[in-house]
């Protein structure tokens, strides 16, 4: 048996990661020596091993997972698109101010040209106002994007704790929350029914010590029942919170719940 044959016999198990350390090290040393045949055999063995995934019983991930992932990638793609704008929106360009200054200087000794100058300055001011409006719009977009990115970070950070909120009514969807010890708390839902006219949904933190609910935020699901509510600074820490609850409240929210919880989820 040649050296290559000896290693070929180990290559499938190496691809699977099931070799014990001494044999694994032998194969790695052989591959590091640049054996083209064994490298090719390894590539094919890796393909073969990957086919074993089809032995797993068929299962479908939840819609919530897809929602979370798409929100994250959209936020990241938006940040990427917004960055070049940031460079552009750094304020009124210097050339514009230079133009104004030059024109003002010129007006000092060119009184006869005053009207023309006023028109030009007005035009420049109009441009400056338009740029200011554009800047405000971009700042708003950046704020929204940063908020989405912040939420995405909370959802993807391994330090965040996931909390499922369930309803007694089996027809109601399950909601999910993610609480990061430093970045805050996000609650999300899909197919959530509207709380009714002139009413909002309100999130409460139920204190572990007193058992009393503390108001956190109010929100509305959109026409499709989708919402994402973020609390950057929750009124209590995760370790001191027993549960999260959501009630329907009058517009503007309440200091104490005025209705029974529609969803509840244990924190610890």
């Amino acid at each position: 048996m040649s050296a290559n044959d000896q290693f070929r016999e180990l290559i499938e198990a190496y691809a699977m990661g099931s070799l014990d350390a001494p044999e694994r090290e032998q194969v790695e040393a052989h591959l590091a020596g640049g054996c083209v045949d064994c490298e090719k055999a390894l590539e094919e063995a890796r393909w073969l091993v990957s086919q074993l995934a089809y032995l797993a019983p068929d299962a479908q991930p939840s819609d919530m997972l897809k929602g979370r992932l798409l929100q994250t990638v959209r936020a990241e793609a938006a940040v990427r698109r917004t960055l070049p704008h940031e460079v552009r929106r750094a304020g009124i360009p210097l050339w514009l101010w230079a133009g104004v200054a030059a024109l003002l200087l010129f007006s000092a000794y060119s009184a006869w040209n005053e009207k023309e100058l006023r028109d030009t300055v007005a035009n420049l001011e109009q441009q400056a106002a338009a740029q200011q409006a554009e800047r405000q719009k971009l700042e708003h977009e950046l704020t929204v994007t940063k908020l989405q990115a912040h939420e995405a970070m909370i959802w993807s950070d391994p330090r965040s704790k996931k909390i499922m909120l369930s309803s007694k009514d089996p027809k109601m969807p399950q909601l999910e929350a993610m609480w990061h010890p430093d970045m805050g708390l996000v609650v999300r839902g899909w197919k959530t029914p509207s709380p009714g006219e002139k009413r909002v949904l309100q999130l409460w933190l139920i204190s572990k010590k007193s058992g009393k609910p503390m108001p956190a935020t109010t929100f509305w699901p959109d026409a499709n029942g989708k919402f994402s509510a973020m609390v950057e600074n929750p009124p209590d820490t995760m370790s001191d919170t027993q549960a999260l609850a959501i009630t329907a409240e009058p517009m503007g929210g309440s200091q104490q719940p005025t209705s029974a919880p529609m969803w509840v989820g244990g924190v610890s």
Partner: protein
Amino acid sequence: MQQLLRRDVGAFEELYQRHSRIVYSLVLRILRQGSTAEEVVQDVFLQLWRNSARYDLSRPFIPWLLTLARNRALDQLRLKGERQRRREEQTEELPQIVSAAPEYEEALDAQRRAERVRSLIGSLPSAQKKAIELAYFEGLSHSEIAASLKEPLGTVKSWIRNGLLRLKEGLQSS
């Protein structure tokens, strides 16, 4: 995949739609816990989104994705302390070497392939099948499998290799 390299959200969504089921099935089979499996699947697809530029377009995508998902799920098993740390690499890196697509790969669509793989492995003696499953889904080494099944080490090695070769022959003849 080329669109994904350009950070196209629509391409990512389509790719997720197409492959999330087999990835989730695999990860759930390894971790046996739905919420943890979803976290790993999320991690896998986010890694795909963020590091797509590192993917070699000349390589077949699905085996690469499944290898990445399996590695991540087995890492999670280790993190949970359910088995000892054995594979010391591949914690953060994408799989560096991706298998070449043998000519017969494209001939089988996902469903037919799943049926074929299940049929071929299902036809093996139950202990041999169990040894392969312990290696693939639990990430156990030969000696750990031998201890678990109370079988000689050499027998376990032969079972796994012969089982994989039988799978290869079966897929080639499909």
